[in-house]
């Protein structure tokens, strides 16, 4: 049973990690807690669902198309809301409240257009095969999600550390004004960051939709809570931290069920979050004073 629970923990954690990845990126570079990330996560899932059910597109086209769509929604939010607030030098709280509004708008629009019931991809579109290793079963799809989120994490870290783009982004995380003085096209890179972050969030939604009967207008909200927990655990704005924070949260939840009781699962995992804030407010990986993207 324990081996199975460890597998369960990693697969749950990797979903949280994938969601947290885009979430933390926006915070690290734009310095904004984007609470519409849950809404983008939901729209990504709907976009893929509609492309597949309405236009009969194969998954390998629908998936990237839905990723791009979520990215564009993120870009739109950046251009319409965040850019204006940046220009006015608005305090931290304003983009946070504005993005809550964007999330409510997305949720109600989706509910109005498609109804409130949960859906999933048509059965022939998802793979319910499992890998059997002794007494442990691993759904292939879950293995795929775990692999994908690890690949995306490594890719993001590589881009940030090793490329000129990454250098520019890290400079912006340090000080957008200094970066602009050095000739970095700050606005454009802000847009790019919003696009990438939203595409990652949308991908998480698509993958959740592939694994579970869970595509509903309200699917973003619980995920947002877990995502916030994951990035606080890992260290706000830290890509490595988001992934490890997500995994850590998944492991905590599963072990709370295994060794305690499912009644106390959320109490334990969010209690732990509270302790973390007291003991290491910068999170597992965050450096105390400097922001690292």
């Amino acid at each position, binding site marked *: 049973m324990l081996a199975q629970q460890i597998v369960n923990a990693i697969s749950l954690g990797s979903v949280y990690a994938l969601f947290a990845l885009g979430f933390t990126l926006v915070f690290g570079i734009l310095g904004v807690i984007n609470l519409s990330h849950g809404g983008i996560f939901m729209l990504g899932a709907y976009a893929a669902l509609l492309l597949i059910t309405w236009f009969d597109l194969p998954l390998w086209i629908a998936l990237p198309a839905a990723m791009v769509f979520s990215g564009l929604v993120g870009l739109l939010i950046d251009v319409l809301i965040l850019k204006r607030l940046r220009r006015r030098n608005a305090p931290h709280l304003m983009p946070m409240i504005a993005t809550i509004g964007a999330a409510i708008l997305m949720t109600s629009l989706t509910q109005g257009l498609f109804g409130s019931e949960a859906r999933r991809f048509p059965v022939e579109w998802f793979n319910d095969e499992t890998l059997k290793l002794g007494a442990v*079963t691993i759904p292939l799809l879950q293995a795929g999600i775990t692999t994908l989120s690890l690949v995306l994490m490594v890719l993001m870290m590589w881009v940030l550390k090793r490329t000129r783009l990454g250098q520019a982004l890290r400079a912006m995380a340090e000080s957008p004004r200094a970066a602009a003085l050095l000739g970095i096209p700050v606005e454009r890179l802000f847009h790019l960051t919003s696009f990438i972050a939203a595409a990652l969030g949308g991908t998480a939604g698509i993958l959740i939709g592939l694994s579970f009967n869970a595509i509903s207008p309200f699917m973003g909200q619980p995920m947002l809570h877990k995502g916030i927990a994951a990035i606080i655990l890992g260290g706000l704005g830290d890509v490595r931290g988001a992934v490890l924070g997500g995994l850590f949260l998944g492991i905590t939840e599963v072990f709370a069920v295994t060794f305690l009781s499912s009644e106390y*699962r959320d109490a334990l995992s969010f209690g732990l979050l509270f302790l973390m804030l007291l003991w290491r407010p910068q999170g597992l990986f965050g450096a105390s004073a400097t922001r690292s993207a």
Partner: protein
Amino acid sequence: MRPYTLPPVLALLSALLLPLASHAGEIRIGLAEALTGPASQYGVPIQNGFLLARDEINAKGGINGDKIVLVEEDERGKKEEAINVYKKLIYQDKVLMIFGPTLSNSMFAAGPIANSAKVVAFGTSNTATGITDIGPYIFRNSPMEADVVPVTLRAAIKHLNIHKVGIIYGNDDAFTKSGYDVFKQALEELHIPVVDTETYSKGDVDFKAQLTKLKAADPDAIICPCLSEEGSNILLQSRALGIKQSFIGGNGFNSPKLVEIAKSAAEGTIVGSPWFDGNPSSQNQHFIAAYRKKYGTDPNQFSAQGYDALFIVAEALKKIKLTGHLDQDRQALRDALPNIQIDGATGKFAFRPAPPHAGKPGGNDANQTPFVYIVKNGKFVLLK
């Protein structure tokens, strides 16, 4: 203006504006259902059932020549709205009685208004315990979960030879929590031990940790008083984890969606319901065919209960003579209803007086034997 002065003022206003609220040859009945919002998935099929029954009754000459008129209102599945709609129907539209509201919560809020105005409030979809404790003017033809669950359990225990069970349910939702309480009590009465109880929260999609634990506890069956959305995920994930046991569901499992989504993972699932689409009785087959013809979709349990409810009241109306004095007519209907029996789309139906609650007389509950289904080859079939 203080709120408590509102009803008399409204009554006065409407008396001035509507001198002929009830035309000769018309029987005005209120229908308050959730037609928009999340609860509309129940409210709309209920309304469809009522409209079908109304057309059939009126086409056959109505009630002794009088036509039934349904005054339809949208209570949006909200308590506050149900109260407003009830006040409007009672004092402004001056209806003879009211059907609805859709959710038990709303009936708890609006029922007392009808009861104190001495107007019959008739629920067709309220399954919570205690609804009819509101008072003698409250009726329902929807059996309580507490009536359905023991029947379901007994049938399942016999069929699957169950000695011990595991339970998984959502502990932060009033509906699933009350389903759990009903199951727990029924299990105690049947002396079936629970080897493991697991919970989840609203919005969870991954139940593998809880299910792995349930699997290790090795129950003979798993009880899941869940909604069909989570239920389908739970079924799919348990099969992926190699759990072979059958699931037993509550009212929430009573949905074609369950099989549609979970497919083969739903095989062997047992649920109880007051209505069975495969019931070969002529009333039921007629209802299904007429519903399909009128709406182009299949009816569900809720439409069948709405359809039957109007026939129950029609029977009562045939037995009384309407005088045109609203208070007298309302009281006459209330007095005639408890003795009505019909054979409808949901089968044989009679009322059962609710026991007095806290020294006050209660209303009338449904006295009806539920059907127990099992999922076989992707279809709900009657468990023999």
